[in-house]
C-alpha cells in the first residue's frame, strides 16, 4: 500500500479548454504512477484523430457533438483534448418509467488509429436498464463516459475493455445520480497496453446509491490504472467500491486509487471502499491507494481496506490433495478471488462470460459444467 497524499479539497478544476490544464510531467499526484510516454499522445490535440461510434439501435444513437447539451466538463488534460476535438458522440437514452429487460449492448469502435470518445448514458426517472459498453481495442481511444441516472432510476453499467495489448486507452466516467437513484458501475479491464480508467460519482440529490465494482487482470507488461473519485455532497447517500485485480508477470503494473470525499453537508453518508490484488507470480507490481477524507463526522459509516497478496500455495495444496489437478486448482482459487465482484452482477450470462474470458487469458482448462456455480 502506498502512502496516500491528501485529497485536494478545493473544487476540481474543470474546463473544455485543454490549455487550462498543465501538461502532466509525472510529478502530479494524478500522474505519478503512469507511464507518460504512452499517455502523452493525448496531451495535445491530434487533427488526424477519428471518433468513437457504435451501432445504432432503439436506445443508441450516434450524434454530432454539437447536438449535446450536457453540462459535464472535463477534469484533466486528456479528457479536455478529447472533448474539445471529438466530432461525434454516442448517446444512450432510456426514457423515464421504462423497464428495459434486455441489456443494451454497445460495441464502441474508433474510426482511426487514434480516436476521441464521447459517450453519454441518460437513464430517465424511475427507469431500470443494463448497459454494456464493450471496447475491443484495435486502436488508441481517449474520452469520456458521462452518465446521468434520473430520480429513482437504476442503471447497471458494465464496461469491458479488451483487445490489443499495445493500445492506449483513457476513459473518464462521470456519473451523476439523482434522488434515490442507484448506479452500479462495473469496470472489467482485461485488455489494452496502457489503460487509465477514472470512474467518478457525484450525487445531485439525497438518497443516491453508487456501487463501483472492478475486476482487472494484467499480464505481460500491461499497465492498468483505475482511479476512483466519489464525492459525497448530499445527505443520506451511499457508496461501495470493490475492486479486485489479478496480476501475472513478468512486468505488469496495476494502480488502484480510491478517493472518497465526504463534504460537510453529506450527513448520513455510508461509504466503504476496498481493493484486493492477487499476485499470481513474481514480477508484477500493484499499487493500491485508498483515501478517505471526512468533512463531517455525522455519518452512518466510512471505511476502506486494501491488500495485495501472493497466490496462496496452501490453498493450492489443499485443493490438489483432493485430486484436483494444479491448473484447475489455480482456476478455482482465482475464480474464488473474483467471486464477490462477479456475484454482484445480477446477470449470470455476463458473469459466466467474464469468468470464461479470465480463464482463457490465464490458460486455464475448459470449464466443467457445474463449476459456474462457484
Amino acid at each position, binding site marked *: 500500500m502506498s502512502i496516500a497524499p491528501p485529497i485536494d479539497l478545493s473544487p476540481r478544476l474543470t474546463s473544455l479548454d485543454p490549455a487550462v490544464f498543465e501538461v502532466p510531467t509525472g510529478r502530479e499526484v494524478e500522474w505519478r504512477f503512469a507511464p507518460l510516454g504512452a499517455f502523452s499522445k493525448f496531451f495535445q490535440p491530434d487533427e488526424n484523430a477519428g471518433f468513437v461510434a457504435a451501432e445504432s439501435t432503439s436506445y443508441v444513437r450516434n450524434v454530432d457533438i454539437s447536438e449535446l447539451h450536457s453540462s459535464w466538463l472535463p477534469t484533466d488534460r486528456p479528457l479536455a483534448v478529447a472533448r474539445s476535438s471529438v466530432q461525434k458522440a454516442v448517446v444512450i437514452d432510456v426514457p423515464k418509467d421504462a423497464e428495459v429487460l434486455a441489456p443494451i449492448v454497445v460495441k464502441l469502435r474508433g474510426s482511426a488509429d487514434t480516436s476521441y470518445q464521447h459517450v453519454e448514458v441518460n437513464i430517465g426517472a424511475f427507469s431500470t436498464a443494463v448497459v454494456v459498453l464493450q471496447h475491443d481495442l484495435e486502436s488508441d481511444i481517449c474520452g469520456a463516459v458521462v452518465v446521468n441516472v434520473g430520480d429513482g432510476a437504476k442503471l447497471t453499467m458494465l464496461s469491458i475493455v479488451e483487445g490489443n495489448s499495445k493500445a492506449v486507452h483513457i476513459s473518464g466516467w462521470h456519473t451523476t445520480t439523482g434522488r434515490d437513484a442507484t448506479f452500479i458501475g462495473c469496470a472489467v479491464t482485461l485488455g489494452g497496453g496502457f489503460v487509465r480508467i477514472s470512474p467518478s460519482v457525484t450525487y445531485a440529490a439525497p438518497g443516491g446509491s453508487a456501487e463501483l465494482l472492478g475486476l482487472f487482470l494484467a499480464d505481460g507488461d500491461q499497465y492498468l490504472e483505475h482511479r476512483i473519485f466519489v464525492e459525497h455532497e448530499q445527505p443520506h447517500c451511499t457508496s461501495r467500491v470493490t475492486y479486485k485485480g489479478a496480476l501475472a508477470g513478468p512486468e505488469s503494473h496495476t494502480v488502484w486509487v480510491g478517493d472518497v470525499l465526504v463534504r460537510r453537508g453529506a450527513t448520513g453518508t455510508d461509504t466503504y471502499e476496498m481493493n484486493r490484488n492477487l499476485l499470481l507470480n513474481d514480477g508484477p507490481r500493484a499499487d493500491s491507494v485508498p483515501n478517505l477524507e471526512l468533512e463531517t463526522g455525522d455519518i452512518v459509516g466510512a471505511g476502506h481496506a486494501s491488500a495485495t497478496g501472493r497466490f496462496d500455495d496452501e490453498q493450492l*495444496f*489443499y485443493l490438489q*490433495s*483432493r485430486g*484436483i489437478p494444479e491448473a484447475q486448482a489455480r482456476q478455482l482459487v482465482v475464480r474464488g478471488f*473474483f467471486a464477490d465482484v462477479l456475484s454482484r452482477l445480477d446477470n449470470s450470462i455476463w458473469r459466466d462470460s467474464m469468468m470464461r474470458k479470465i480463464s482463457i487469458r490465464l490458460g486455464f482448462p475448459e470449464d466443467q459444467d*457445474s463449476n459456474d456455480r462457484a
Partner: protein
Amino acid sequence: MGSLVLTDLYASVITDDGELEIIKGVSLVIESGTTHAVMGPNGSGKSTLAYVIAGHPKYRVTSGSITLDGADVLGMSVDARARAGLFLAMQYPVEVPGVSVSNFLRTSVTAVRGEAPKLRTWVKEMKEAMGALQMDASFAERNVNEGFSGGEKKRHEILQLSLLNPKFAILDETDSGLDVDALRTVSEGVNAFRRQSDAGVLLITHYTRILQYIKPDFVHVFIDGRIVQSGGTDLANSLESEGYEQFAPASA
C-alpha cells in the same frame, strides 16, 4: 488387499534458513482394512509424516520410499496421489475464499472418480453424507472452510473422506479442538467409512481420547522423527497412564 508401505523414510522441512531433518528413518506397513494409530508428543514430527505422504511442497524426502500397492508415491504430484487413493484429513484445513463447498466437493469427486457424478444422484449423495455428519444443508453454500468453527472444519474433512472413498486415509489430529459431541460424530463418520470400505487408516494423534471411539489394530509411539515402539491397544493404555516420558531418549 493393498498396502501403503513406508520404507526407511527420511524427510526435511525446507525453511528460509535451509533444511532441517524431521523424519529420521520411518518404516511402516499399513495393510488394507487395518487401522494404525501413530501417537507422539508435540514436535515429534508426526504431522510432518502426514504431510510428506500427501506430498506437501514444504517438505523434501531425502531418502527412503513410499509405495501404494507397489506404485511409487514419491514420483506422483499431490493431486495424482489423491487420485491414486490417498487422502489426508488435515489438522488445519485451509480456507479457500469464494469457492463454495458444493463446487469444491463436486470438482474433487469428479477428479478422483475420473468422471462427473450425475447431478441428481450427486445432490442426494452429498446430502446424505452431510446428514450422517449432522451438517446442515446450508453448509454446501458456504465457502470452503471460511469462518468454520473447529468442529465444522473437522466434519468437513470427514465428509470429504466419505465422498472420496480413498484406499488409504491419514487422519492428522482429527480429534484436536473437538468437544465430546463433535468427537463422537466425527469418529462415527470415520467408523462408518471403515465399515463400508476396505481402506487402511493411519490415525495420527497426541491423545488417547479418540482411541475410545476409533479402535486401532496397531499403535506406534512416535518420538523425534521415528517410531520407537509398536504394539496393540495395550500400548495406548500404557501411554494414557504413564505418558510419553518413558520413551524419551535416555540422553535427554
